[in-house]
């Protein structure tokens, strides 16, 4: 079994684009409801600042992009936690989107693997 790849299916990637400095709050909220972790990218956004005219000074171009992969069955739970913790429902709070992942490959601990195979 060492050279077979085990794919995980039914996974969703939550991508949240938020003002710089908020990513840690989001990740903490996600972990609090059980998500395993995520990635933070530094990014620079365009558009909102220009679109808003002078109101745009309240929008920082510096953004953080957070990627979190969760089982599709629990995507709502984690999304809710992120939206509330990150203030994504407020003006200027950023946005998130969910992407269905076709498959995910990673190392699966032997104990988990044994449990999966027993379940088959």
């Amino acid at each position: 079994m060492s050279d077979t790849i085990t794919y995980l299916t039914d996974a969703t990637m939550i991508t949240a684009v938020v003002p710089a400095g908020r990513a840690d709050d989001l990740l903490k909220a996600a972990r609090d409801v059980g998500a395993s972790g995520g990635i933070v990218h530094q990014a620079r956004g365009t558009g909102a600042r220009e679109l808003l005219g002078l109101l745009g000074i309240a929008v920082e171009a510096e953004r953080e992009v957070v990627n979190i992969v969760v089982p599709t069955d629990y995507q709502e739970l984690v999304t809710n936690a992120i939206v509330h913790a990150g203030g994504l429902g407020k003006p200027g709070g950023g946005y998130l989107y969910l992407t269905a992942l076709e498959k995910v490959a990673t190392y699966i601990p032997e104990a988990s693997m044994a449990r999966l195979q027993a379940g088959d």
Partner: protein
Amino acid sequence: MSATNLFAGTEGLHSPVAHSYHAAARMTGRYRYINFQRSLGGGAAAVSARLLSQEPERDAAGRIVRLRTARPSFTPREIARLFQPYVSQRFLDQFKTVAPLAAYLVLFQLLFLRQLVQDSWLITGGLLAVILGLMFFMEGLKLGLMPFGTVIGATLPRKSSLPVVLILTLLLGIGVTFAEPAISALKMAGQNVAVERAPYLYALLNDWAGTLVLVVGASVGVAAVVGTLRFLYGWSLKPLIYLTLAPVLSLTVYAALRPELAKALGLAWDTGAVTTGPVTVPLVLSLGIGIAAAAGKGDSGLSGFGTVTLASLFPVGGVLLLLLYVASILSPEQIIAAAHAAQAAASSTPAWYQRSPSLEIVSGIRAILPLVVFLFLVLSALLREKLPHRSEIFLGIAFTIIGMCIFNIGLTYGLSKLGGSAGGLVPVAFMEVAGFADSPLYVYAVGLSLALLFAWVLGFGATVAEPALNALGITAEQLTNGVFKKRTLILAVSTGVAFGIALGLLKLIFDLPLVYMILAGYLLALALTVVSSEEFVNVAWDSAGVTTGPITVPLVLAMGLGFGNATHAVEGFGILSMASIGPIITVLLSGLWSRYRTGAQARAARTPITANIKTSEVFL
């Protein structure tokens, strides 16, 4: 999608099962538990993104050519929510630096000096104005002036020849000095100097105040030019420091030998601390780095350093030269006579523009506009560049001016008053002060140590929270590959400033000649510089300029003057200069110490091998 299922559960949207389920629920009155829970938490709704966008532009054939994005309209409540985090964060940034200092001064007066702060409402209002003013000023700087710096820094060196660039750098130095918020504090300090006791000091701060700022600005400009040349040719900072200090220290000694001139030494050395603030450092550096980048010299890590050092040393020399010039054309008697004549003439009420608060507003506009006009001319006439986001830049410039005006008002009513009253009250602890019945409050030795402790803690507290110092700490850690920890640097600088301010207070109490303290301090710093490595020298000498921000400078300046008045010292300057030399010495010392410790660890690790240690150490 129809509007009716807008608020159905997300996964129920396209599923016929869910639709029949909803129908069933309506009929039977039974609901899924999960839907109940969603109804509590607000749940989720789905809307097609197309519904939020407008009908696209189509050509004659009906093909879509272009999407239309309308500028969204917001209700006032939405705008308030958009700006709430923006405003509160900027407010907190300034609040965090002002509030602890103010609280400390008030508490110290209450607990140790048993005095209530007079005009507490006026001072609170003034401090609020300082916070608001700095908030507007810093934001305006970011929105309105920094884009100029970036564009000019990136394009000027490529489009113009080096001499032109250097001349513009010189002019920029003058412009930024006028725009520096702490400069107005220096001018304000002049009102409290008694002309009979220190005529030249009085002349510099009153009749010659404009020239003084001009000379300081020109010195900053020259420093910026030398700093830029240093970027270009990769000069070491050490020889520059030696070459600068030699004439400046000689001028100091020369002035100290003439008693009338010696009284202005404190002012000369204090201006160095005033010049390097939130306007000068980023604008001058962005130009310098742009020039270095255009010449193919990348950011070597060290290239950002040194200019701050030179910009705090050159003005000392400039002010000393101005002092000698004034002394050569005017005698003390002439100054005193002129001052008396001016006072007699000014006994009538001053014109509206010479009174507070319009005075602050006029001086705020006068401080910013020349810099803006200069930057604008360089950009449009010389570079023919267009600025991106024009309206934002104009808003930023407006913010800068508004901020400067509010800050100036706050300076008069808040920082200067609070610092002055604190400085005036501290001597009550150990000496008899007219107007305080039970002064001195403590036995001489206790009261004196209390006053020194007060100064020490003030210096430490004001420095340790300075955001610029944090940034310097991070750079220093990277530069020295982690040998010099950020925490070490912050502690070293804060301790240095603390001892510096305490020493400055000692100078005022015992009327010590500043020249000895300066000479001793800078000679020690020079000796340490000789044996330190280039990285530590850069960090240490720059740390002196970094620590004195727009809040610390007016506060300490006012405190010194108030203290000087109460103890009948001739002048209250000199504390800031001590606060500048303090951190240079402590940072150099701690740099040497951390190098010694790393060396000791390395030696300890190598002791078992005996034979070739000497040679291997040479190569390492």
